[in-house]
């Protein structure tokens, strides 16, 4: 912009840096959750996620020595590696939780009852005793070690497949999908016909109806909860998929009609009038001309409605989820996890990311239509 008059802006480097800072600031929280979902519970609690990219020194939880006992001379000896071959460098260690950094690597420590233990910096230990340690609880070792970055897919395995109870999102994932797809497709068709009538058919009251749609755009759906729940109970639907599909359809219609009408009204008049002159009925014009031409607007609305129904919590809680909990959706389950498992970040982060992944994919693939829809949809 500033180059128009032929001079290069001296601010350009500042603009680049400011943009970069803004983007990083906006990205940072999400990346934190993504990285956390690939870490074990111990890792999450022992260090901030931002340090997980680098080799880091951290205090490990106690590890109990274990291994096969061998008799060497008078001594019973157990040898092995504390870290099971994982790469780590011990900087200090101890044998009690009160002094976890008492010794340096390589030192040999006398324990009670004539036992000794030696720990090398790579985690190799030698444990000796004068009596057999069979069936006894062996010594615990506290280590402070520098370990290489280490990520795991275990959390995703738990959340998607093996988890029990609320840890397992598989069912909720399919429930969300079951809510979303019909709730996205059905309003499109209903709205498209109405939008065509409001855009290209002459009838008394048209302007009033358009104004009504604009007004309904902003009516809070909070008002609809109790009356509709009562209505659903009266007609025998109760809480269930049918109710939530109908509710999403109703709530999505004003935006759908508004977006599609705005788009259709901009289509060239000639095409439609020529078709009329050639004897096409309104139904034919709509199906053969308007619908194909309106594809970008249809896509825009479909994306909006998909994101909105996928991410919705309130409508699902009121119209879908009953006390049996069989029809819970992902957003609801995550709120439950926040309550009951507020400290289990590995499960929480992974569950949240599973639910975020699909909308993010849709967002990045279909961004063009989303932006176009936004520009058309904001009331001018």
């Amino acid at each position, binding site marked *: 912009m500033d180059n128009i008059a032929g001079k290069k802006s001296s601010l350009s480097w500042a603009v680049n840096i400011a943009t970069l800072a*803004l983007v990083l600031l906006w990205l940072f929280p999400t990346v*934190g959750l993504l990285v956390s979902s690939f870490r074990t519970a111990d890792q999450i609690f022992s260090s901030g996620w931002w340090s997980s990219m680098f080799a880091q020194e951290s205090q490990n939880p106690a590890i109990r020595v274990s291994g096969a006992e061998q008799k060497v001379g008078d001594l019973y000896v157990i040898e092995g590696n504390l870290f099971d071959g994982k790469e780590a460098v011990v900087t200090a260690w101890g044998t009690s939780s009160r002094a976890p950094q008492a010794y340096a690597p390589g030192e040999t420590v006398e324990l009670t009852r004539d036992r000794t233990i030696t720990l090398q910096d790579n985690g190799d230990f030698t444990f000796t005793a004068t009596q057999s340690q069979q069936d006894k609880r062996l010594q615990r070792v506290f280590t402070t070690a520098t370990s290489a970055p280490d990520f795991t897919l275990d959390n995703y395995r738990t959340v998607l497949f093996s988890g029990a109870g609320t840890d397992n999102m598989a069912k909720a994932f*399919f429930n969300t999908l079951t809510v979303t797809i019909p709730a996205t497709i059905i309003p499109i068709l209903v709205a498209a016909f109405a939008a065509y009538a409001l855009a290209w058919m002459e009838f008394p009251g048209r302007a009033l109806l358009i104004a009504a749609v604009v007004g309904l755009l902003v009516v809070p759906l909070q008002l609809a909860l*109790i009356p509709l729940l009562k209505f659903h109970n009266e007609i025998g639907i109760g809480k269930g998929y049918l109710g939530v599909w109908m509710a999403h359809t109703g709530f999505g219609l004003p935006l759908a009609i508004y977006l599609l009408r705005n788009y259709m009204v901009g289509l060239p008049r000639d095409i439609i009038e020529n078709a009329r002159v050639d004897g096409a009925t309104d139904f034919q014009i709509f199906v053969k001309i308007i619908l194909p031409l309106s594809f970008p607007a249809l896509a825009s609305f479909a994306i909006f409605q998909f994101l909105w129904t996928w991410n919705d919590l309130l409508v699902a809680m009121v119209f879908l989820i009953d006390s049996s909990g069989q029809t819970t959706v992902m957003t609801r389950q995550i709120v439950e996890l926040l309550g009951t498992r507020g400290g289990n970040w590995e499960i929480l982060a992974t569950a949240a990311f599973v639910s975020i992944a699909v909308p993010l994919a849709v967002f990045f693939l279909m961004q063009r239509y989303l932006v176009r829809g936004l520009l058309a949809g904001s009331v001018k």
Partner: protein
Amino acid sequence: MNPALQGLITIVLGVGGCVGYFYFSNQFLDKVLYPAKGPNAGRNINRANMIRPWLFLAPALIALGFYLVYPVFETLRLSLTDRDAGGAFVGAENYSQMLSEPKFWEALRNNMMWLIVVPAASTAFGLLAAQLTDSIKWGGVAKSLIFMPMAISFVGAAVIWKLVYDARPEGTEQIGVLNAIYLFFSDGDPQTWLTIPFWNNFFLMIVLIWIQTGFAMVILSAALRGIPEETIEAAIVDGANPFQIFFKIKVPQIMATIVVVWTTITIVVLKVFDIVFAMTNGQWETQVLANYMYDKMFRANDWGVGSAAAMVIMLLVTPILVWNVYNARKEMR
């Protein structure tokens, strides 16, 4: 029945039903009711064309009427009745009960703060982001990334930000970024940010600002690009500096769009529910109207007061509703 199967059947029935309805109702109109032939062909065609728009509109109007218009009046009625007394009319009793609750005033106060802070901050950040990204080469990528939170659910965002605000006991490693930064610069104790009354509201608002900035940026960026270049060139020739160009030339020209963005975000703020519900559930003085209403309706099962709270939200939305309708009508003329 398996829900997936039920879903599939619903799609087929829903879509098939719609197509069938539109097709057959048109056929019926043209072939049976007012056939375009015989002695009255001309009159019949006119009559059919008078009825046809309503055929196209009927399903949408019925759905809108049932799911949005009727509930407004029904909620108004419910707010004036007492459910425990068998739905007897009680006048303004629910409202006076609501007004006597400190939680309601807390919710109203917080909602007002949300109304001031969130639209203002989102629009300001959005304007900044739009101006910055429009003038650099990798602006498209930057836009995408700032826009991305728009696709994330409020619940997902709540989890993301809870991790940012997380607090671990003193002396242990902090895993929440905010506490890590705080302790890096000061010697204080780790703070549980979401439980500090008054200020915790702002920590919740940040989440919505983070989500809405992308929306503001996209709309405002399009508006900025629509500004006629002559006005900017003229300003440059007259020796205006970049800041003057931005604030005195560009911003006044996109004022209408800024108002649109502002009101749209205001509507979102008025309905804000998920963020508060998932992060604090209204504890520690973070209650907002939508969550207060949900508490009343589905936890306390008090439909009267719940409906009264819903009517308050409706009342707050009404000025924007009227303004939008007024503008839409002006545009159509």
